[in-house]
Structure formats: structure tokens, C-alpha cells
């Protein structure tokens, strides 16, 4: 069981700790619904240090990345964060990730916690002269998410983060909080050019990314700095309504925005064509598994992940059957009660012919058939989509 450097903070804050993907993480501090609504209304702080951190670098690494990613990461400008899938030779999704070019021959990649070791082996097996540096155990990550996130960040750093656009990253010194006074040791943070120049302050990679559908930032710093950053976010953030948020609300927040959960919405047998979103595949470049996706697309015969909203009472859950005219047509992969809509919401696979918005179906909740309808994602509008 791994613990993040913030473990003691979570326990002190009353976090209910659970096992998740090999890590002991807080599922909630107070109530999942209250935490969820805090992020929608003001701002939440999440420990996401369990996520992986790779640097992949060396001559020709751009071409290598190009073949492993469904999106065109290679042609992204320096500092642009690109959401992408990695497929196997059968076109099946191995993981989803955010990859960011740090320089001409250097990329930063964040795999999911549960897939970190699998992805390291997978990328490693495609390397020639290039190298992969796995800093997953050396780096912490704190997500600050919600409408007031930019004000919270402004209380930590003099870097004008309003100039860092959605899905862009910048190296920033958190020069408005006390530094522990030592230099970073990881390949990600040492020897970088920081946006606010050389000087004091905790050094971090700050990206305008997240998993909540709200405006927000993810701060990646060294383990030794994590507690200082976390405390500063919570203390400075008080004025902006910041509260600590557990994995429970992280899951309901992402589901309201129809964001995929690795290992749940895809688990080794689905393609990017089935899951979407459509922009995750850049068809103009070549990548492993592309021909399978092209064949699948031409066949017009596959199951598609759709968003369904319950029109009756009842909460859809992972594994529940999706029914139509008395027969099973699919399966729910993610389901919950939406704290914002107060309705059951679900994502699940149905045959493509039944995937049109407005299609009526039922979700089998134990012995009850709950009426539901295919809706356009996301379930909850607003924020950054």
C-alpha cells in the first residue's frame, strides 16, 4: 500500500481513507454531495499524487509518441497539454493520459495510478535510444478545481496564470509561499526555466487541467514540498471557499461531465471510437491500432458509450443492464446520483443504432426497470467543457 506525502494531512482533516489502485487515499472528508457542490460553486483541493509521472525523452521521441497516441501530441506546441488514448495493436485502449511537450525531444506524460506500471512497460518496450524517467514516487500533485481556482493560484504565485490557457502548462515558482529552501531533485523540476524567473518559492509545474469540468489547475511539485503547497492552498484558499475533496466527489464530478474513468469505462476491450470523445482521435496521423479503428468505423457496427439520464427514480450503477423492449442491449459502466441534477446518470455501452440522443431505454436497478434516455454529454453544462 502506497501513501502520498499528504497522508497525514488527510487523516488530520478527518478524511475517510480507502484503498484505491494500490494507494491509501481519502474517499471523503465530510459528505460526498457537499464536497461535490463546493467544487461546482467555489473550489476544491484534491490530492492526486497517486497519478503517475513520466518524462519520455531523447532523439526521435516525437515520432515514437506519434505512433503510441491517438491524438497528435507530436505537433502540439511546447507547454500544450494534450488528452490522448494509448491503444494496443488491436485498437483497444490501454490507458488515457495527458501528454505535454516540454521541449523538442522531451514529453511529460501522466498515466493513471492503476496503470502506471503497465504504461511504463508499454512505452519502454517501444523505446530505441530514448529513455523513460518514472518519477511517480517522487512527485506529488494537487488539483485545485472550481470557479475560484484562479484566485487561489494567484495567492500562491506571481505568475499571471490568467495567461495560461485551458490545457496549457507552465513551470512556476510558488513565490508567495515559503520555500523549504532546497532545490528540486527530479528531472521534471530541476534546471527548468521558470515563468517568473529564478528566485525563491516552491518550484512546480502548473497546468490548467483537471477532471471536474470546472476551471482549475493541477500543481505538480516534489514530495518534500507537498505539505507546504497543500496547506497553503487550504489556508490561502479559505477566502475563496476552498475545501479538501475526496475521491468520492472526484468520481461524481467527472461523471457529471461525462469524462472517462480508466479501468471502468474502458477496461481493455474497447476502442477510442467506442468511447469518444471524437476529438481524442486525430485521423491525420498514424498510430498503433489505427487500422482497426478505421475498419470498425467503416463497419458501422459496434457498441458505443452513451450518456443516459434516468427519467424515473433510481440510481444506475456499474454493471447494471441496459434494457430495451424487454431485452438486454448493454451495460452501465459508470453510474451515480448526480448531486447537481438530483437524478440518476449513467454511461454505458449500447449498439450504435441505439446510441442516438433521445433514444429511450431502461436500466435494470435490481428488480426495477428504471426509464432512461440517451442524452448529449455532458450531463451538467457550464464550467469549462
Amino acid at each position, binding site marked *: 500500500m502506497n501513501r502520498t506525502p499528504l497522508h497525514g494531512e488527510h487523516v488530520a482533516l478527518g478524511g475517510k481513507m480507502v484503498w484505491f489502485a494500490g494507494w491509501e487515499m481519502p474517499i471523503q472528508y465530510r*459528505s460526498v454531495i457537499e464536497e461535490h457542490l463546493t467544487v461546482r460553486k467555489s473550489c476544491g483541493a484534491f490530492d492526486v499524487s497517486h497519478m503517475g509521472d513520466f518524462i519520455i525523452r531523447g532523439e526521435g521521441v516525437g515520432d515514437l509518441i506519434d505512433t503510441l497516441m491517438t491524438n497528435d501530441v507530436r505537433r502540439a506546441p511546447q507547454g500544450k497539454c494534450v488528452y490522448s488514448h494509448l491503444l494496443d495493436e488491436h485498437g483497444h485502449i490501454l490507458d488515457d493520459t495527458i501528454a505535454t511537450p516540454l521541449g523538442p525531444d522531451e514529453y511529460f506524460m501522466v498515466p493513471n495510478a492503476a496503470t502506471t506500471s503497465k504504461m511504463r512497460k508499454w512505452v519502454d518496450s517501444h523505446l530505441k535510444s530514448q529513455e523513460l524517467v518514472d518519477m511517480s514516487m517522487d512527485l506529488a500533485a494537487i488539483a485545485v478545481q472550481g470557479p475560484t481556482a484562479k484566485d487561489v493560484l494567484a495567492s500562491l504565485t506571481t505568475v499571471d496564470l490568467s495567461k495560461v490557457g485551458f490545457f496549457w502548462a507552465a513551470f512556476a515558482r510558488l513565490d508567495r509561499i515559503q520555500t523549504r529552501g532546497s532545490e528540486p531533485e527530479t528531472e521534471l523540476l530541476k534546471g527548468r526555466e521558470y515563468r517568473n524567473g529564478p528566485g525563491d518559492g516552491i518550484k512546480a509545474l502548473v497546468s490548467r487541467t483537471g477532471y471536474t469540468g470546472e476551471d482549475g489547475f493541477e500543481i505538480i511539485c516534489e514530495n518534500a514540498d507537498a505539505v507546504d503547497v497543500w496547506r497553503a492552498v487550504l489556508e490561502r484558499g479559505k477566502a475563496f471557499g476552498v475545501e479538501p475533496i475526496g475521491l468520492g466527489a472526484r468520481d461524481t464530478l467527472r461523471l457529471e461531465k461525462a469524462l472517462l474513468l480508466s479501468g471502468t469505462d474502458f477496461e481493455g476491450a474497447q476502442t477510442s471510437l467506442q468511447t469518444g470523445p471524437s476529438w481524442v482521435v486525430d485521423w491525420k496521423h498514424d498510430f498503433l491500432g489505427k487500422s482497426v479503428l478505421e475498419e470498425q468505423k467503416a463497419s458501422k457496427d459496434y457498441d458505443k458509450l452513451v450518456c443516459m439520464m434516468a427519467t424515473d427514480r433510481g440510481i444506475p450503477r456499474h454493471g447494471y443492464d441496459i434494457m430495451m423492449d424487454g431485452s438486454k442491449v448493454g451495460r452501465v459502466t459508470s453510474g451515480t446520483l448526480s448531486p447537481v441534477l438530483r437524478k440518476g446518470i449513467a454511461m454505458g455501452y449500447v449498439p450504435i443504432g441505439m446510441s442516438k440522443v433521445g433514444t429511450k431505454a431502461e436500466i435494470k436497478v435490481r428488480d426495477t426497470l428504471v426509464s432512461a434516455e440517451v442524452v448529449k454529454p455532458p450531463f451538467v453544462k457550464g464550467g469549462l467543457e
Partner: protein
Amino acid sequence: MSVVQPDLKYTKNHEWVKIEGNLARIGITDHAQAELTEIVFVELPSTGKDVSKGDVLGNVESVKTVSEVFSPVSGTVNEKNDKLVDSPELLNKDPYGEGWIAAVELRNQDDLSDLMSADDYRKLLGE
């Protein structure tokens, strides 16, 4: 520390039973509601339904989990608490009062002898 009412009977699955003549009124304990956290949906049994001891009487759901409520006795469902349909939070606010789930007409009074006293239940909780 959770509340254990002295005048009720309990099960190891954290249900409580209040004996009202031939009726067993059933709910979940304060400990159970606290473990579940905020309850957002309650599935009630139909009145007239025949249940055996140990059968699923209903389901109580939080945002993240589904928890089954087992009938501590055999008999016929005589009443159900329809207030919980619109106000599932009553289970959190008043688990031993307004948050009752159903009342079962007893088929066999002997079922009651298998239930735990408040003292035994408190010991089970280790509080």
C-alpha cells in the same frame, strides 16, 4: 460514538426492531446510517409482501454505495415508510424515529428471541 436505544432489539447487520404487539417495526441503526453517510435513495418493500427472516427487505443507497436491509423476522409487510421516498435523509436525521423503513406482521414470535439486546449490540460495535 453512535446512539444505541435501550428499548430496541438489534441484529448484527445493524438493523433495529421495535416490538409493537404483533408488529415488528424495522429500521437501520445510527451506526449504520453514519457508515453509509448521506442517504439519497431508499427502496421500500411493497405492503402485503411475504418475507422470511434474512430476506432483503429494502435497499438504502448513498451516492457511492448500495446497502441491503435484511428482514430480522418472518412475516407480512404491513406498513412501509413512504416519507422516505421523497425524504431519504430522514434515515440520517432520525434513524430510530421518522427514519423507520417498514413494519412486518410477525408469523413467528420465536424470531424475536434471536435478536440482540441493546447491551449486546453496543458490545458488537465495540464502543
